[in-house]
């Protein structure tokens, strides 16, 4: 299989201005930080980014916002980023806020080859404006369209040369559904192993969904809210 690439730069080499990207992660957890760094370096612009959050000011998608590479964000929660808020209020940045479950399900629909899904989330709110509503068994549902992304960029813990992926802990989040949803899917992993080294029963994302894979070095894995307890009051 020719899926293994040598670096993040090579993985994102043909991402062009104006494309739509999905970026995995929840907050800074399970974030494809090596590909984001490569996109910042590459300087592609006018991107539409589908990602649950918009990073923080100096990490994650926040780095791309700072360079004005993002034309539109499609997210469920963007509260952690002052630069984001500034660009939003000044009209420099277009934002589509989507309920989190709807965001995940629109990714899932793309990965399962379904054009749309029906969900009750947003009924009676401004999210429903302009959307088709269908009543099933006495309850209203919104029709939400599958996403159409040029690239999906995800982070997994372990992957093999066939592109099979395994995630770790809650860093899984949006990564598996986004991995299924891109026209081209790039996976960055902490450990890249030979085909056969991952038990097929343990694969979370089958390699058929993954087009490019590389091993990232020195993950920063920044923590957004460090909360701890003291040993003595355990």
């Amino acid at each position, binding site marked *: 299989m020719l899926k293994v690439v040598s670096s993040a730069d090579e993985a994102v080499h043909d991402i062009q201005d104006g494309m739509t990207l999905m970026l995995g992660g*929840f*907050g*800074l*957890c*399970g974030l494809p930080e090596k590909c984001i760094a490569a996109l910042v370096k590459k300087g592609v612009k006018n991107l539409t980014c589908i990602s*649950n959050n918009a990073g923080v000011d100096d990490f994650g998608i926040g780095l791309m916002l700072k360079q004005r590479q993002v034309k539109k964000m499609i*997210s*469920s*929660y*963007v*509260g*952690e980023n002052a630069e984001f*808020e500034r660009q*939003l209020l000044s009209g420099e940045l277009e*934002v589509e*806020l989507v*309920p*989190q*479950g*709807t*965001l*995940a*399900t629109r*990714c*899932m629909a793309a990965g399962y080859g379904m054009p749309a899904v029906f*969900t*009750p*989330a*947003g*009924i*009676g*709110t*401004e*999210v429903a404006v302009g959307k088709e509503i269908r009543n099933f068994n006495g309850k209203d549902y919104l029709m939400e369209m599958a996403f159409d992304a040029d690239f999906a960029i995800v982070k997994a*813990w372990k992957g093999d040369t066939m592109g099979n992926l395994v*995630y*770790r*802990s*809650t*860093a*899984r*989040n*949006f*990564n*598996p*559904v986004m991995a299924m949803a891109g026209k081209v899917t790039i996976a960055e992993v902490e450990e890249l192993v030979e085909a056969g080294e991952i038990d097929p029963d343990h694969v*979370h994302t089958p390699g058929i969904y993954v087009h490019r894979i590389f091993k990232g070095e020195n993950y920063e*894995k*920044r*923590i*957004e*809210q*460090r*909360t*701890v*307890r*003291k*040993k003595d009051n*355990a």
Partner: protein
Amino acid sequence: MLDKEGIAKRIAKEIKDGYYVNLGIGIPTLVANYIPKGMDVVLQSENGLLGIGPFPFEGEEDPDTINAGKQTITILPGSAIFDSAMSFGMIRAKKVNLTILGAMEVSENGDIASWKIPGKMVKGMGGAMDLVASAENIIVAMQHVNKAGESKLLPECTLPLTGINCVKKIVTELAVLQVLPEGGFKLLERAPGVSVEEIEAATAGKLVIESDVPEMAI
């Protein structure tokens, strides 16, 4: 009058053995501290975990293990991890028994506003719209009045809605109230030392008082 911990303590009494519970950010998160020992309760975190444990010990934080508030947490034995689509799948399919979340406003027909103040604050709805649209058992934890002293229990919400006809119960620093199917806030309990008159004064929506309103036992 209750403090935030008191509100959390009172809400914890609504949790039953065997429940799967989703706790929102803010006061709802505190509820976890007051679940009676020995009760089998599983906390769901919508980023993809059933079985939230306490905060890690200093030095044992795992950046891959966080809750929906992006706080570092631990994972209890018997937990399960899943992706975001499945997480909201189990919410939509009503597998989660109880949802506790915060709000800026609740109306007397159970509408909730919690995600946006036009022109001032746009953080996004996160998972709140999905939760309130599907959950059958929704408790709102909030202050009875806002910082400007205005009631947050209204005839109709003034802020952009998160969901409609969905809130069943509200616990504030002053009272426990039930949202009646026909509309109105039925006063169930008073916080210690709070009079019915004080609750009436702080409630802009229709308040239904049927008989002697007992003081909360916490």
